[in-house]
């Protein structure tokens, strides 16, 4: 077990909208060790992106704010830093990759400049040093003709290239932590695998920790050391990658795995989870998965279960899972 790089404790991020208080992230615990890839999976709207934005303190406007909890990173609580101190962390110690490589790059700025900008902001370097470093980083992420590409605009690049530029931008300052929010969703499978391999290379060669957000269990299986399953703003299961696929304990995790078709085996009928995710503005009182859960008990709707360590390093939020596992 490696050294803890980041510890998130009971993070709550709420959005105040005109009609309701949206509890997008509702008490999350998350640990990231050095050189570890932590995957967060969960359905759309379960709070994955908001978690990452909360870490980065990039929540939109006055609406959304961190209500409580702490984000300990290298000993500092990020949620307590001033905006200026936070700026120094962003892009340097922690950096981030977003889902849409097209829109995440500034369309009117040359690619090279966008990378250099980070260096100029965080490192004492001259422009030309920044440029050569940018080219070097682009080469590292496998961009051919890097010295030409720096002078091109994002729209002149293909999707895969753009995402690599994003990665280059994120790693040019050699951050300790990379947060990647669905970095490959917009990419084709054959390109996706290239990008995923690249991220592995980053972890292996630079010991960067990665939080990888995805809803694709295939990607999780490919990449994760540790998996966090989110549902309705909460962590419902959190454990090592092997355990999730071999012994999923939370009914939601189980259902999820059962409901996706696989290339390897043929399922006559897919399991399907009835109903839909409750809306973040109106969560039920008890277990948030209760009304879709096939094994739900009346008590489930009454009381919110705790996230418990049922096996070593295996946390589950379900009242029905006994300690020691074997649901």
């Amino acid at each position, binding site marked *: 077990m490696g050294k803890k790089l980041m510890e998130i404790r009971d993070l709550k991020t709420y959005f105040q909208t005109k009609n309701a208080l949206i509890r997008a992230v509702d008490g999350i615990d998350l640990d990231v060790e050095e050189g570890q890839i932590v995957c967060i999976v969960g359905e759309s709207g379960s709070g994955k992106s908001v978690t990452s934005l909360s870490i980065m303190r990039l929540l939109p406007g006055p609406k959304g704010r961190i209500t409580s909890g702490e984000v300990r990173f290298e000993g500092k609580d990020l949620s307590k830093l001033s905006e200026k101190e936070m700026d120094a962390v962003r892009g340097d110690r922690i950096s981030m990759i977003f889902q849409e490589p097209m829109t995440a790059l500034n369309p009117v700025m040359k690619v090279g400049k966008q990378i250099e900008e980070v260096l100029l902001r965080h490192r004492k370097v001259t422009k030309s040093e920044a440029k050569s470093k940018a080219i070097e980083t682009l080469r590292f992420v496998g961009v051919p003709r890097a010295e030409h590409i720096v002078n091109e605009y994002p729209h002149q690049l293909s999707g895969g290239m753009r995402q690599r530029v994003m990665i280059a931008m994120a790693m040019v300052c050699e951050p300790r932590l990379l947060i990647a929010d669905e970095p490959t969703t917009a990419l084709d499978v054959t390109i996706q695998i290239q990008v995923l391999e690249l991220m592995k290379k980053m972890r292996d060669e630079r010991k960067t920790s990665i939080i990888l957000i995805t809803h694709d269990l295939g990607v999780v299986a490919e990449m994760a050391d540790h998996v966090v399953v989110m549902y309705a703003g909460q962590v419902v299961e959190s454990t090592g990658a092997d355990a999730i696929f071999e012994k999923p304990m939370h009914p939601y995790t189980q259902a999820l795995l059962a409901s996706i078709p696989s290339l390897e085996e043929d399922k006559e*009928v897919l399991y*399907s989870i*009835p109903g839909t995710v409750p809306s973040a503005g109106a969560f039920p009182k008890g277990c948030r998965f209760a*009304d879709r859960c096939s094994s739900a008990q009346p008590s489930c709707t009454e009381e919110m279960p705790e996230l418990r360590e049922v096996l070593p390093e295996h946390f589950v939020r379900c009242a029905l899972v006994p300690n020691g596992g074997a649901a």
Partner: protein
Amino acid sequence: MSNTASITERERISPPSVAPGKGRIILNVLGGLSVVGKASLSYLVLIYLFVLVAPLFLAHSPTDTDPLSVTLPASGQHWLGTDELGRDELARIVSGGRITLMVGLAAMALAVVLGGLLGSIAGFFGGKTEYVIMRLVDMMLSIPSFFLILIEITSFGNSPPVVIVAVGFTYWPQMARIVHAEVMKWRDSSLVEAETTLGAGPWRILFRHVVPQTYSSIIVLATLGIGWAILAESGLSYLGLGIQPPLASWGNMLQQSQNYIWTAPVLAVYPGVFILLTVLSYSLLGEALRDVLDPKLKR
């Protein structure tokens, strides 16, 4: 074997609903307006009621001149005083308001119909039709509206219908452009494809499915446009080209009052303030509607 759970499940949905009438929808929209929007709407409702109903209660006719009591200050007899020919200012404001508000509405109605029709046809059918219509729009837009109105009015005289047509006629290209852009967004949409695959003809798709998608932009634009039309009429009146006496309009009252700016400046205040408030209300209402109907809509 079918997974019946997925087919027959009864999903959690709030209580069974009945068909909401159009009225409900309108109420919902109005209810969603911001405070400023509601205030503007209330002002507009009141002012329309005022100009429609007030004549029943007014003691004076707006055309009754009295040379011996010109530019009187406000009094119990004449609540807003009298104008340069001794006519009751309140009665003039009311009857001028009728005309002004009517010109605004009618001009905009014309612009909406003409612009909406041409814009949506251009946007939907594309090709040569689009080219011709949009060139026409370009042409209209390249004559600054004021010049065009100026020429139209000098050409056809300045009876209210001409003023309405002239003002409306200058606004339709703007309308057409927006509607064109909005409709064009839908031209290749899956909505249109879906309807096509159902076998619907192009006109049905255009008017039943695509045009309704642009209603909110049209409503917003029209609301803003009414204010613009009212201003345009008053600008025309300033140049002596708007609605003509003995008909009153706020614009021509303002224009007349210019001659009394040194002696009876209050004559310029009443119509000016009414124009200001009305145009302001329309604009604010338009903004508020934009927020409710289509938060993404931009000009």
